[in-house]
Each structure stands twice: as C-alpha cells, then as structure tokens.
C-alpha cells in the first residue's frame, strides 16, 4: 500500500487550486463506502501516512491523474511494508 498523503501533496503542488477537493469529490462514494472521512484540511494537517483500503488508494491515484493531467510519479506509488 502506498502513502496517499504523498499523492495528495503532489496533486496540490502540480494541479489547480482546488485539486485536492476535486479528487475528494471524485472518490466520495468510495470514501462513504469505506466509512472514511477525509477533507483537504485533515490531509493538510496529517503528518503520518494514511492506512486506507486498496480500492480507495487506487481510486485516489486515478483521480489525481485525471485532475492533474499527468501520471502520478512512480516513487509515490511504490508500495511500502504495511503493518496495517
């Protein structure tokens, strides 16, 4: 599982002003399905990696690519050893 915080930060740096909100609205149904509450503010303040279901992290990566208009860098999608 990769760290979606890095993907959100990348989208914020490389995308338009409300890139994070556009990603969130695109994946909103999956957030609800997985009972995850995420906002741009909580993502901003988060200091550690987020443990999220795989279908959600994959959807966030896809949405980030759509919003920014280019592929998410591979190093951000590299899987990390997970204790979750």
């Amino acid at each position, binding site marked *: 599982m990769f760290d979606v915080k890095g993907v959100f930060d990348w989208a914020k740096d490389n995308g338009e002003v409300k890139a994070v909100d556009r990603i969130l609205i695109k994946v*909103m149904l999956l957030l609800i399905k997985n009972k995850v509450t995420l*906002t741009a503010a909580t993502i901003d303040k988060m200091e550690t990696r987020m443990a999220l279901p795989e279908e959600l992290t994959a959807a966030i990566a896809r949405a980030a690519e759509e919003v920014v208009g280019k592929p998410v860098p591979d190093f951000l999608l590299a899987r990390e050893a997970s204790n979750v």
Partner: protein
Amino acid sequence: MFDFAEFGYDFATDRLVVGGESMILHCHHYNCFLQRSIQDAEYIDSAPILVGAAAETAFAQLTNLLSQTPDISARKATVEALYRASGFGLIDLNTITPEGGEVRTRSTHYSTGWKEKFGRSQTPVAFFSTGFLAGALAAIYRLDPANVQASQTACRSTGADEDVFSLSRGPANFALFEPRRDVVLVAVGNDPEPATSVNREGITRAVAGMPLPGNAAGLITAFGVYLTRMYADYYNRISFAFEQQMTTLAGRQGVDVAAKLFIEAGHVCAFNTFGGIMTSAEWDALVLPMLATREDWVFGIVGCVNALGWGTWKVLDVTPNGATFRIYNDYESVGYRRMYGTADHGISYLATGGAAGLMNLVYVGDIRQKPDLTPELYNRLFKRGRGFEARMTACQATGDPYTEIRAELAEAVQGGHRLEGASVSA
C-alpha cells in the same frame, strides 16, 4: 434583434428580469468551471440536471415572451434573437417542426468556452444549449416539456466541425423540477457605509446601460472573456439540485466538498470578470477618475457588480486586512427560496468566492498595475502565500434579512499553501 434594454434594469433591486426570469452576467470561465465541478461527481447522473435546468428556465421565459406572438416563424425568430443576444451562440430553428428536428451550429458558448478554457473535451459539453432547445421547442409549439426529448450528438469542443442537437417527441430525457414559487424580495436597507468619493450608483447605471452586443458568432466578447446573459435560476437549479443529490449520497461531507468547489467557481469568476473589468479601457474612462485610494477600487468594482443582475451589494467596511459585504437579494438566495424554501445552511457560494476574489485582486494582486490575468497570477492569489478567504456570516436563504460575506486576509501556512477549510456555514 432582441434588445434587453427594452425590459429595463431594476436599480432598486439591481436585477434584470426578462419574461419572468432573472438574467445575470457571467463569463465562460465561471460557466465552464461550475459545470465541470458538477460533472466531477461521475457517480451522479448530472446531464439530466444540466439539460433540465436549461429547459425549465428557457421554457418559462419563452412561454411568457411569446404569449402575444401567434405566428410560428415570428416565434422562432424571437427565440433565435434572444439566444444570440444572450451570448449563447447561433441557432437556426427553421429545421424544426412540432415533432422536433435537428439543429446544427458552428457557434455555441459552452463549446467554444470549454475548448478555450480546458482544451479538447472527450464528450459533448453544451448541456445548456441542449436544454434551451428543448424548452424552445416546447414553447414555440405550445407543447408540454415533459413530452420533449433533446440530446447533443456532436460538439465542437470534441473536435467536431459543428454542434448538432437532436430534438424529438417522447417522455422527457431530462430532469423535470417542481414549479418554482413566486419571488419574494427584501427591501434594500439603508446601511451606513464608509465615506467614498466613488459614485457607485452612477457606475451601476452606466455599466447596466452598456449594450454588450453579440458578435457575428452570437458570442459576447468583453473584458477579455465570453460573457453570457444567463438565467439566474439555471445556475441555481444545477447547483442546488446537485447539492441535494450530494446530500443524499454523501451527507454533510459531500456538501462541504461541493461547497468548496462552488466557492472556487466564485474565485474564478472574480479573477476573470472583475479582473477583466478593472483592467479595461471602459474602467479607465468611467471609474478610474473617481478612485483616490485602494479602498475606492473596492467601491468601484462593487458599483460594477451591482450592474450584473446579482442583487445589491454594499460595502460595510473595508481595510487592507478585510472587508464586509452585505448583499440584498443575492441571486443564489432568491433562487434557493423559490425552489426549495428556507435553507438549513448558507448557500451563497458565488458571492462568497466573489468577495474573496475581488479583495485578492485589489490588495494582493495589485490590479491597479494592470497585471496580465494569467494562470500563474491566479495561483499566486488563490493557492499560495497570503490571500483573502471569505465566509458567509449571514444568508438570506436561511431566513436572514440579507446575505453577508466577511473576507479576511489569511497568512500562508507551512509549505506556502493557503490554509484550507474556511467555514462556509452561515
């Protein structure tokens, strides 16, 4: 030719009502951004909302305007002229019959605007024109819109040579909404405002009197943007119907995210339209001679805003660190109450974003120096570093006697980004 001046701008409430519909000025940046924000929620079938909202407003207005015109050719000519004068593009309705038909055009506001703003689209984008034509077909032949179908089969935004719309009879393939209630407007208060040498009323009268004619393509090019005289309740319906669906699907979390994008649409509007106005030759000729201080620039642009049909804006206080705008009969609140009654949260999103946007232009972007209105400047004003953020402190849609927006200077947080999460609740 269709002349909006014949209907008379109401300077008591700062609205233009044509055939029973409030018409307001907005640019292609706002129009396309708002539509894209709604379409971002791909799990909501937004096309029927976008088309249905246009059909609803166009049908209501045209039924009113055509009530004394029995001749079909004359009815079609009036619709074509209104469409063009509104900056929606060009349409030729000679091909349609009571059974429908095909409308082809090489000029549509949304197709042109979308391509210029976002580049080529993968799918057709002219939902507004699709719905307008459905409403027009029904109004011209006195049909029930519930028995009209409309779709766009080709779109210039996708690379096609022309936009093609197909009209036919059958159960409506777009959303049909509950009838709207009568408009209830509030009296504009006599609020104390800071002293200024700016003659806002004079500016409002001058700007409202500008003819803003469509060009040969039926597009209004002014202040560096494509303008439209759009139905206020088109924006209101698509925004609030979308918000209701988000509430059903995602509760408060969904509404909060949608609200941020609606407010961002207000930033986009302010940056491009207000910025375009404040860097225009018309501004230099009409407004600039009245401006002595930077605060006067805020009063000056508010004088222009009051000519857009958005309701009556007042400036209760303004300093380099913040401003309070009080708005009577803001079009979002008026529309919400017509459609859904009293709101349980603030819904004046465009006003919120617009207030922050104009403060950013004046105090952060130093619009006095006429900077180019580039994406880089937009990012500087709304994404990184210091900038204004706004929140609703009152909203007429919730039962307050006016809408009030407080814009305050926010400092950048770590990393240079703007702090996210400004309250939008009234």
